[in-house]
């Protein structure tokens, strides 16, 4: 016995095959492994549908080309016209997806909220909530992101599942819920890359929260992972760096050194590792040892905070080693370098405030035709300020702000194009209205005269007359004009003859008249059938003509009825759209300005922090110098007695490396 489920409609099977083919095709463009996953993800899909509304296919034509803005415009327009009656569910889902894609997450969220009911397959719903959670997270809506993540039911496809866990952990961490994040990650056995990032993030979060105990296992795991991938090696460096500095803070220099020594010397984090290694030595009391890594840093770029700090650390170590003159020399050169760098930062702040630098970045990036949230800043600008701003430029706030800024630029351009068509439409409407105003009176006159009705009445008259002739066999009625004239004359002659006095003359005339009448009647009778046929055919032709006229008449009546709605309405709509356009463009300009200011503020904030740090260093260097000079003046034989990084109440604010002694 065959179980019903085993019966597969062959057509259905074909659809399935087709689907996975298309699926593979589609996803191959995005990422190959995912296509594999999607192929297997059969239970996740919506029932296969046919294109039942051509206009829905037209939307997809643009959507599949990545023209999301065009697809959105068409989708909403076609829907307003009611041209998508058979694809309501899918088009609404697509609409939500497009809004999401274009960064309109509020709109997308609202739509998903209404749409993602139980009738939509879990896979579709889950993906929708996942992407929504992602955009909400980077835009800082943590509560919403968490709520959306909680709506995911079951597991996502493997590639997304890892990202979901990562996202969940990040949401928890940013809400300071470290214990929950740790529980989540401890039980997670995901792909190496994702788990490494998640553990690193959590480790750092614990360190920042002052929970070194909790942080150590996570950071050590990442700091000792084996990988050939450059990206993971960089992450490993960062984990070791974080761990090393955390141990330094906890005054465990030996453990710190162990972690820091795992940082690659040729990697991007070597400067900070060298700085830390020096501090570890210093904590162990080995200032000579500390000088080796610190002096190594002197030739590196002063942009690096680790290098800046080494400018203070080196003279500090010399002072500890009683090499006062070297200490003085290095402090002095540090003061000079900090001065110069500080001036450069001032100049950078000026330029950012003047707006030139950001416009440079943003305009260049904004000119790309594409639009939307999934866009990423591909390479960093080459402006001189940029070197101070790497971390800001890579941050979510800046990146998301930049997206908004360039979206606004894109929309502005799109709307500007419309404004160029406005004149043309205006004159089209004018022309049309003029044409109508010339023709309408004539149309109205025609319609009022009811010409077709009159024609029909006349036609009926003709028909009844033909019927009468046929019934009465009135042969003469269908004769030619000449025949009818002759016939008339014969009848008149007969009447005249009847008035004549009887006699042979009258009989003779009557006989001739009868003969003429007989011949004529014979002729008329012979052609009567043919002529009657002609008459009937003419009537049929007339009928056809009348039907045409009737149709045309009706169309004219319809057209006339639609005229007021057509012309005046267009004019009004055009005018209204023009006003909206102008207002919207003003808003676009204003908001773009605000967005630009916000981005500038982010940059200035970062630059100011850097300047503040430099100033602090500056102050420390000058103070140390003054102390050395004072001491030299007071007791030439007594060396400076600096205090190292062993003070226990520091770590929250700038602390002078040199403790002034009275």
């Amino acid at each position, binding site marked *: 016995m065959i179980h019903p489920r085993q019966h597969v409609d062959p057509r259905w099977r074909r659809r399935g095959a087709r689907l996975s083919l298309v699926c593979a095709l589609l996803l191959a463009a995005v990422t190959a492994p995912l296509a594999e996953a999607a192929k297997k993800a059969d239970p996740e899909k919506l029932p296969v549908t046919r294109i039942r509304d051509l206009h829905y296919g037209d939307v997809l034509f643009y959507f599949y080309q990545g023209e999301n803005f065009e697809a959105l415009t068409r989708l909403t327009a076609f829907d307003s016209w009611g041209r998508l009656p058979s694809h309501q569910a899918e088009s609404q889902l697509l609409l939500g997806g497009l809004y999401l894609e274009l960064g309109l997450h509020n709109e997308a969220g609202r739509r998903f909220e209404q749409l993602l009911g139980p009738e939509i397959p879990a896979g579709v719903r889950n993906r929708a909530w996942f992407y929504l959670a992602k955009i909400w997270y980077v835009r800082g809506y943590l509560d919403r992101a968490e709520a959306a993540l909680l709506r995911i039911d079951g597991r996502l496809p493997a590639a997304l599942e890892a990202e979901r866990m990562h996202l969940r952990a990040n949401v928890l961490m940013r809400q300071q819920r470290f214990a929950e994040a740790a529980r989540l990650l401890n039980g997670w056995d995901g792909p190496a890359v994702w788990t490494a990032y998640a553990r690193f993030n959590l480790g750092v979060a614990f360190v920042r929260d002052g929970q070194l105990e909790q942080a150590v296992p996570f950071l050590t795991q990442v700091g000792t992972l084996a990988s050939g991938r450059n990206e993971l090696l960089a992450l490993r460096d960062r984990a070791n760096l974080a761990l090393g500095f955390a141990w330094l803070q906890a005054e465990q220099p030996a453990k710190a050194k162990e972690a820091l020594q795992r940082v690659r010397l040729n990697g991007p984090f070597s400067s900070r590792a060298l700085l830390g290694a020096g501090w570890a030595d210093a904590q162990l009391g080995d200032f000579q040892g500390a000088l080796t890594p610190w002096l190594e840093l002197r030739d590196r770029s002063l942009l690096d905070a680790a290098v800046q700090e080494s400018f203070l650390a080196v003279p500090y170590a010399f002072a500890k080693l009683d090499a006062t003159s070297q200490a003085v020399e290095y402090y002095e050169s540090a003061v000079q370098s900090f001065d110069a760098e500080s001036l450069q930062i001032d100049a950078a702040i000026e330029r950012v405030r003047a707006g030139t630098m950001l416009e440079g970045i943003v305009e*260049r990036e904004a*000119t790309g*035709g*594409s639009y939307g949230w999934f866009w990423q800043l591909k390479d960093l600008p080459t402006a001189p300020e940029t070197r101070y701003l790497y971390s800001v430029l890579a941050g979510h706030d800046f990146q998301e702000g930049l997206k908004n800024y360039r979206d606004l630029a894109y929309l502005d351009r799109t709307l500007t*194009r419309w404004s*160029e068509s406005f004149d043309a439409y205006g004159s089209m409407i004018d022309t049309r209205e003029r044409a109508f105003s010339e023709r309408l009176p004539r149309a109205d006159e025609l319609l009022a005269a009811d010409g077709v009705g009159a024609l029909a009445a006349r036609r009926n008259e003709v028909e009844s007359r033909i019927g009468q002739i046929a019934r009465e066999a009135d042969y003469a009625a269908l004769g030619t004009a000449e025949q009818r004239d002759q016939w008339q004359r014969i009848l008149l002659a007969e009447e005249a003859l009847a008035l004549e006095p009887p006699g042979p003359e009258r009989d003779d005339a009557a006989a001739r008249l009868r003969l003429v009448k007989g011949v004529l009647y014979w002729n008329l009778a012979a052609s009567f059938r043919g002529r009657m046929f002609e008459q009937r055919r003419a009537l049929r032709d007339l009928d056809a003509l009348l039907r045409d006229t009737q149709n045309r008449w009706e169309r004219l009546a319809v057209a006339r009825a639609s005229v007021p709605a057509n012309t005046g309405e267009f004019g009004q709509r055009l005018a209204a759209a023009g006003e909206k356009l102008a207002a919207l463009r003003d808003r676009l300009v204003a908001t773009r300005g605000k967005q630009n200011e916000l981005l500038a503020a982010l940059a200035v904030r970062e630059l100011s922090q850097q300047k503040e740090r430099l100033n602090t260093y500056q102050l420390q260097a000058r103070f140390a110098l003054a102390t050395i000079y004072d001491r030299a003046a007071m007791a030439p034989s007594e060396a400076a007695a600096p205090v190292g990084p062993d003070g226990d109440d520091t770590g929250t604010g700038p602390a002078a490396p040199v403790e002034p002694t009275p």
Partner: protein
Amino acid sequence: MFRSQPLALTLLLVAGAVIHALDASAAERHALIGKPAPDFALRSAAGPNLRLSEQRGDVVVLSFWSSRCNTCRLQLAELDRLYATYRPAGFVVFGIGVDDDAARAVEFVRAQGASFPMLFDPAKQIARSFDIDNLPMLVAIDRFGVVRLVRRDDRRSGVAEYTAALRRLLDE
């Protein structure tokens, strides 16, 4: 504007050249400047059809040529050098041939050996839509698809000037 007879075209171009020699600043003036470039799709010598609007986001230079035009060869060679340099910065060049003799056009493309796509516009529809009245003629379109520069002047001395202009477009 264009007839299918090569003679008529040649006459027209000669006339165009004379007129523009008299008006040196004409290179800057063109009805399309500041307007969205008319979109088109053309067959390319290499095979695929190429559509202008699909290049949005890049700076596109259209160089109109004919196999009978010697200065066209120079301009295309010059553009080939620029293309090699600026391609990674989002610079696209389309050479657009307006020959109606397909065989000659194909031979010209082969001999020229340009590394950018060479397209064929035998019906001269695209040339008409861009108001091409001289050969060679160069039209530069910005990353938003707006015509920004039209150059009829084919003198060697002008190269630096338009190179600078193109670089400005790339920097926008």
